[in-house]
């Protein structure tokens, strides 16, 4: 069974990915998959990024933004990929992911421009917060293998 910290991590990551609630099967699957990974221990910086990301949704966004270009195949990106896969597959949560977001073309482009601007600002913040820790703790990690 997942411990309190792991349950919290699953809940924070699921909320960050847009799920209103996390069915217990998803928490259990998430935990079980991660237990399986632990045959290979995380690098120190990856472990730090995961701990930071699990603190709150806001920090998940910061850590994930940094991880996308500094640790694209690292532990955090893999955990978020796993959570997204579980959310898009479970009967209670899939609907939010199995759709497009139709709108007028102008509205869509405006939204994309806004998303891009916010992302750029977040990227600056992410570098300011995560880069020093990366310099202190960092090391490269191999990509995780899919089935």
């Amino acid at each position, binding site marked *: 069974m997942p411990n309190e910290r792991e349950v919290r991590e699953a809940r924070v990551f699921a909320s*960050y*990915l*847009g799920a209103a609630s996390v069915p217990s*099967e*998803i928490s259990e*699957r*998430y935990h*079980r*998959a991660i237990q*399986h990974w632990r045959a290979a221990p995380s690098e120190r910086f990856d472990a730090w990024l995961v701990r930071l990301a699990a603190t709150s949704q806001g920090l998940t*966004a910061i850590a*994930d*933004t940094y*991880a*996308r*270009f500094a640790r*694209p*195949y690292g532990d955090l*990106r*893999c955990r*978020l*990929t*796993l959570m*997204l*896969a*579980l959310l*898009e*597959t*479970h*009967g209670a949560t*899939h*609907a939010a*992911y*199995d*759709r*497009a*977001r*139709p*709108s*007028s*073309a102008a*509205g*869509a*482009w405006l*939204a*994309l421009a806004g*998303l891009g601007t*916010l*992302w750029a600002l*977040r990227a600056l913040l992410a570098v300011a917060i995560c880069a020093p820790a990366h310099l202190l703790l960092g090391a490269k990690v191999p*990509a*995780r*293998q*899919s*089935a």
Partner: protein
Amino acid sequence: MARHLVIGSGASGVHYALTILERGEEVTLLDVGYERPAAPLPDATYTQLKEQLADPLSDILGERSEYVVYPGPVSKPYGFPPSKSYVFRQPAAWSLTSRGFDPLVSFARGGLAEAWTGGSYELDERDLAAFPFSLGELQPHYATVARRIGIAAERDDLERFSPMTAGYDAPLPLDAHSAQLLGAYARKRQRVNALGVYLGRSRVAVLTKPLGERAECTQLGRCLMGCPRESLYAPSYTLRQLHRFPGFAYVPGVFVERILLDGDGRATGVMTRELAAGAEKRFTGDRVVLAAGALASSRIYLSTLQHENGAAPELPGLMDNRHVMMPFVTPSRVGHDVEIASYQFHHLALGMRGNSAGDDVHGQITALKGAQVHPIVSSLPFDFRTSLSVFGRVRAALGIANFWLADTRRAANVAELRVTDDARHQLVLSYGDDRSDLGRTNQAIAAIRKSLRIIGAIAPKSQTAVLPRGSSVHYAGTLPMTNDERKHTCRADGSVRGFERLIVADGAAFSSLPAKNITFTLMANAVRIAHASQ
């Protein structure tokens, strides 16, 4: 009455066998034969499946979520679900190592074509230039196969690359994105054609009307999982048909080790090993037909020579289509809605004529509809939350062009056998690119990217991936049909020189590898060889 021992139940094996059985002769089909699991809830769409399955997480992602597509250096836009794991399962007796080549091999009932996306294109004279028979000798057999499997197609510009002599069914309804691209092509055809590129509807082995026990496509969006209505063709459906013939015997659960030869080099049977008990078992027949797929058939042939002579030669001429994956976005479709439950695979195809058949390019274009979200979202260049928001708005605008380059037989690309320390026979494949490969690939990438741009789609350079050799899943050429009286080659009728009554009916016998998907031709050629095998 002749008894044919057919090895392998893939596209070539089942169509060879069906032709023989229809003639009233007998067939014993030997197969490892891992079986396709029954598809649950056959009328549910992909999204309904998630709501109605008792345990969708296990059925779609695996018990331990092992089918999740994690981010990695090679971007994978999708992963096969657990329902397709039978296609890639391998017996312990099989051993393969390779250099410069990363192949997939199947021991499933139906072989690799159980995961086929259905692209069915007749070859033309130019494609067959290196083969020792004419197009006229092959064409009637395309018609036979098209009648057996059902192919949806439409006459268009691609007919200049791929004739339409077989009988075809009405095409599938186009999705909105593909229709838009095809409309733009119709308006700007001249500019695209000036680059040597032509666009049209893909011809797919999908039913648009019922055929026997198989039902027509109702767009459930479960193509990748395995169509529960059997609309998308798989060779295991033909295998099921074979059981209706009294002269047919199916023997699954055996691994064919070698061909048995008499003192005159005549094939008299095969030696197999039972997967469950591990015991050797001998089968005899009047013809032995290698149809296990080019790589597995090469291993059986080499193991036979190793057993007979104490050494096996190198088989030169291993071929594989260079495969390029080019994701694109059509900006004018940003903000549009998308039909999630729809035919998942390609609706459009492209052809590009090179200076010779060896320079030709063939491709298929898939507009994104229903799909796993996580592999795509994790590959976007943002954090997950931004990527999900962006993806929702651009989903209807995304697509992927997959294209393949022709290949020719080259002496340096070989299949050979290694006897391991524990006396196992290991197939060793070596493949090295020719200097001209890079230039041809880059030319094709540039022309296709420009063509997409002309019809309103942008393919970012950074997203285009030249995949490792072996990923096309079209392997051929190790025992080629030729008119030259050389060892380790076949005659035009598939019979192997030096070994009476031994026939190659799969891609190992191909004399060159056209850019077009070869599965339809593998089946037609197997029918041609069966007719020749009197």
